[in-house]
């Protein structure tokens, strides 16, 4: 009797703790939504600086929702902060690669920045984008985990029972196929999300031969140009362009996507 009571207490405490966590999360999510709505209303009223402040507050709190980044880019664009707008939209595109609105906005800002237009994606790339855009990178990771657990559960079931052998085999095969689809997509999604790229936030940004303020300037980056990040050394970032040119820029003058 005593033992049962002790167990009941433990279960009760756990349920209470979970309820507390759920309530805290719900309250926090509610606060985030309120700030987001404030930003949207500020935007709708034409107060773009206020909208940027609201959106940026959410970004600073670790929110990376594609809609938030999209709206942040919109508000920055309205303020003529084109390079920052591109940065926000590039970040959003990594999380929602099939979003046609994002692609259109990026196309427009690239044109306004006077940069080389991005090449149109080939049909396999479009198919891949559509597949990756079905959920977020975290979503793909969770799908991969679920299919992995389903596969192992089905496999375990086949070892502990001899009933419904055919049904178990079907479940194992389905789970294995689902995992084989989800895992590469999760990997690609993560690889895209973590692709080391940055956007030049200063116009005519000098790219230096060495990570030092007095080093020779090799060429300049136009405002909003997207570059590949090869590495970082203190306050300097080693960047390269698709044509092979590379050099060093100050970390503060670029924004990592």
């Amino acid at each position, binding site marked *: 009797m005593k033992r049962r009571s002790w167990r009941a207490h433990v279960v009760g405490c756990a349920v209470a703790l979970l309820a507390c966590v759920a309530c805290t999360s719900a309250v*926090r*999510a509610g606060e*985030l*939504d309120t700030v*987001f*709505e404030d930003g*949207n*209303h500020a935007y*709708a009223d034409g107060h773009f600086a206020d909208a940027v402040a609201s959106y940026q507050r*959410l970004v600073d*709190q*670790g*929110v*990376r*929702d594609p*809609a*938030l980044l*999209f*709206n942040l*880019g*919109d*508000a920055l*664009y309205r303020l003529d902060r084109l390079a920052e707008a591109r940065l926000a939209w590039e970040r959003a595109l990594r999380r929602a690669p099939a979003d046609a*609105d*994002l692609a*259109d*906005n990026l*196309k*427009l*800002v690239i*044109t306004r920045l006077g940069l*080389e*237009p991005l090449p149109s994606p080939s049909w396999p790339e479009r198919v891949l984008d559509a597949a990756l855009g079905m959920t*977020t*990178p*975290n979503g793909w*990771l*969770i799908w991969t*985990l679920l299919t*992995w*657990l389903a596969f*192992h*559960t089905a*496999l*375990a079931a086949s*070892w*502990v029972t001899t009933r419904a052998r055919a049904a178990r085999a079907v479940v194992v095969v389905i789970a294995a196929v689902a995992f084989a689809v989800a895992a590469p997509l999760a990997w690609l999604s*993560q690889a895209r999300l973590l692709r080391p790229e940055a956007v030049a936030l200063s116009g005519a940004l000098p790219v230096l*031969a*060495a990570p*030092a303020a*007095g*080093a*020779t300037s*090799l*060429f300049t980056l136009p405002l909003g140009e997207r570059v590949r990040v090869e590495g970082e050394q203190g306050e300097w970032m080693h960047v390269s362009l698709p*044509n092979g*040119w*590379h*050099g060093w820029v100050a970390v503060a003058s670029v924004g990592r996507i």
Partner: protein
Amino acid sequence: MSLRRVAATAVVLALTLLGVTARAAPARVTVDVDPNPVGTSDRLRVSIVVEGEDASDANLPAFPVVDGLRSLGGASTSESQNVVIDGGGFRRTVTRTISYSFLPERAGDVTIPALDVTVGKQTVRTQPQTVHVIAGSVGAGQSGGRAPSNDPFDSLFRDPLDSVRSRTRTVDVPEMSIRRTASATHVYAGEPIRLTVELWVGPGEGHIEQAGPVSGTERSGFWVENLKTDPRATARTEERAGRVFTVFTLSQDLLYATQTGKLVLPAESWRVVYRPSAFSLLSPAQEIFPKSDELPLDIDPLPTAGRPADFSGLVGQFEVKSDVDRERGKVGDAVTWRISVSGKGNLRTAGELPLPKPDAFEVFSSKANDDVHASETGLEGARTTEQVLIPRSAGTLTVPPLALSYFDPHDRVYKRAEAPGHRIVVEGGAPVPAVVGPASQIATARPVQQGTDIRYIKSAPGGLKPERDLSGSTSIWLLALLAPAANVGLWWRRQRTMAEGRDPLRLKRRQALAQLEKTLSVVRDDESDALARISGALVTFLHDRFGIPRVEVTAARLREGAAEHGLPSDRIEDLVTLLRELDAARFGGVSGGAAGVAKRVRELAKLLEAAS
């Protein structure tokens, strides 16, 4: 230690001592330019050579901007060490070479100023160098070898034969030039100019490996559309002044002037990598930097005479279309209005197209689709806008007709493209409020004109949540590892069960102690037959574990059976004593009660199990 080893050690020690006592020499810094003279199509390499014991610590200055030289990349550094005999002593010297690459921009003399190089505690000033730049290329006399790279590790992987080849071979580089041609040099603003950049290569045995502009091509004053070209696929031969040239089309651009007047495309340099022989092992690549001439273009403004007030800015030939997806509906039903402008001309450069506002409708978020592509004759395709119209009231409502004014450069007149309007019969229903609430504002937008404005902000239907990168989450990976680990455990257990299934005796023995534990755990003091049950459990255990028959458990049989399993004699005696006590206790009771006896039985069973 052998005599030879002792002698070698002595020599090393002597050399070290001599090295220590050798006097330090001042550092020497020189500047080397190669080649000199240099052509405007050649790469100029400027090397700063620092020699001395502290050369490794040489602090080189940022190379100053030199008028007439364009930097081609970062500095590359190399270092070598030598031990020299100096005044009877040995001295270690380090030679550090820093090389910079430049492209001369014009013919004439260029002076590289004196540079201050800090070596250890001393600062050494170099001599200014004058470089003679000639038009064209100095040809075979230029520094050969493979194309230099900015990669500091490049020298590690460089073919050691390259330097030998460049010293021992001189190669003939054919005449090369960059020619730019425009499809028209006198056009209206908004009219396309096709700019073709060609590389003309004179007779030679080798082939072109790479070609690319030295820096971003200057096209200020123009909207540029790239046309895809494949230099190898488009290569052709041309004869000029009795000589045959191979002509490669390097690039083709469509230019749409955004300014009027006399515009000049400045000269541009291209970097061409040429390999003189098809056998790449025997022929080091040569780098040449041919340069084009300036290209003047005349851009006329569009005529003011006859320009309509609603001129759209489009230049070319166009038509407009207007469609609706339904002609009947109810108040509040959505009607999709599709407007398309198609044709050939400056579809991308023209600004926002003037579209009429359908007053009888509430205009909701619109979508634009830009299906415009560049061809050799100009941009062509269609710009389409879809607007969602919601009728505000019942009746016969009108979607207005479209009219688009544009300039036709071929006929040199302004023209007008038109599309008829549409009548929508709207039946009664809930009236649509003219003023919408804050939530609806997010979905409502002013009409977006084809590709000229951004898409309206979005809502987050599922709510916002702080994002954590799950790929770095330990719990995710633990969970992922837990599943196969559990499966390995299950598999191992299954294998064991299968093995025991094939050997029932082994299974029975393994289960004997578990069965005893199970029986003893439920024995209680107040049970009348507790001792009998304990006794029975012990006998069953002895039977299952050691094969002693249940019916005849005597001291002799116990000793005999236990000896067969190699049990120690003191344990056997404990067992006999315990059984006797249990037997006697049935009638006279036992100290410690049934629970105490059960505990003793449990301990003894474990000792027997461990001893067997």
